[in-house]
């Protein structure tokens, strides 16, 4: 059986049972639930501090009405960052490399922001489709451009996350294969390639965290 570089992105299944459900449920298992204590242990305190800090930062540009999204956005961020980081472990499957999962997050949440905007303040929601101070001849063109940019947002959100993670995983696999192949033939080149692989892995750790943050930040800014 020919092993290709894209096998790592195949949705895993065992005896016909899709294992992606276990992969998606795994982040929930890894975070301890805070007990009903006045003062918790160090781990739960640090976990709570990070989540609170992040949620505060995310809610800064939003008005009080937007704070209703705090729970959803914070939990989405924790979920994405955990899945992305777990996917960097060898031989693990990364669910966020699947476009279906990312579009499954992006489209409903983006649609919710649009529908809520149209329902609560339709004049302002429609008015934002034309930038203020546009010259008269450009008005129809700009309205069409802004409408297209609105409709393309969920696609951009989903594809950005998918492409970044897929490309990163593919690069890691390619360079790791290069190191493995070069080791018996040209050890010096293999060591240099291994150094590149190390730096790339550090970059992928950063990308995993940043892409999760960008996904959630852009969603919050669409509100």
């Amino acid at each position, binding site marked *: 059986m020919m092993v290709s570089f894209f096998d790592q992105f195949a949705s895993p299944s065992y005896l016909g049972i899709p294992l992606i459900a276990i992969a998606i449920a795994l982040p929930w298992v890894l975070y301890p639930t805070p007990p009903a204590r006045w003062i918790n242990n160090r781990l739960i305190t640090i976990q709570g501090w990070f989540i609170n800090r992040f949620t505060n930062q995310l809610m800064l540009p939003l008005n009080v009405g937007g704070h209703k999204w705090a729970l959803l956005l914070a939990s989405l961020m924790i979920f994405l960052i955990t899945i992305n980081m777990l996917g960097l472990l060898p031989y693990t499957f990364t669910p966020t490399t699947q476009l279906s999962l990312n579009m499954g997050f992006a489209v409903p949440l983006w649609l919710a922001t649009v529908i809520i905007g149209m329902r609560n303040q339709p004049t302002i929601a*429609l*008015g934002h489709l034309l930038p*203020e*101070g546009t010259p008269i001849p450009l*008005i129809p063109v700009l*309205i*069409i451009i802004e409408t297209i940019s609105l409709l393309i947002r969920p696609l951009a959100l989903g594809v950005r996350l998918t492409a970044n993670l897929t490309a990163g995983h593919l690069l890691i696999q390619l360079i790791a294969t290069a190191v493995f192949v070069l080791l018996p033939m040209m050890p010096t080149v293999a060591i240099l390639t291994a150094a590149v692989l190390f730096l790339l892995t550090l970059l992928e750790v950063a990308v995993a965290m940043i892409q999760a943050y960008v996904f959630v930040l852009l969603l919050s800014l669409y509100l």
Partner: protein
Amino acid sequence: MYIFSNMTMSINRLRTEIMGGHDAGTHHQFTGIAKYFNSYTITGRRNCVLATYASIAALILFFKLKPKKQKAVKSS
């Protein structure tokens, strides 16, 4: 009750002006059609958007409902 409703209106206007990006339209004096279709007030922008969407919908409907010319059948 009257003072309370006045206060609410002025607070709402203050909130509209503080929340950046929204033009309260208080310092623009448009006349004629520009009063309803302009790119400065929020209602003007909304009306421009709705007019553009209505025009596009009308164009699509026009081309969909236009009767197609039937080619004359040539006798051989």
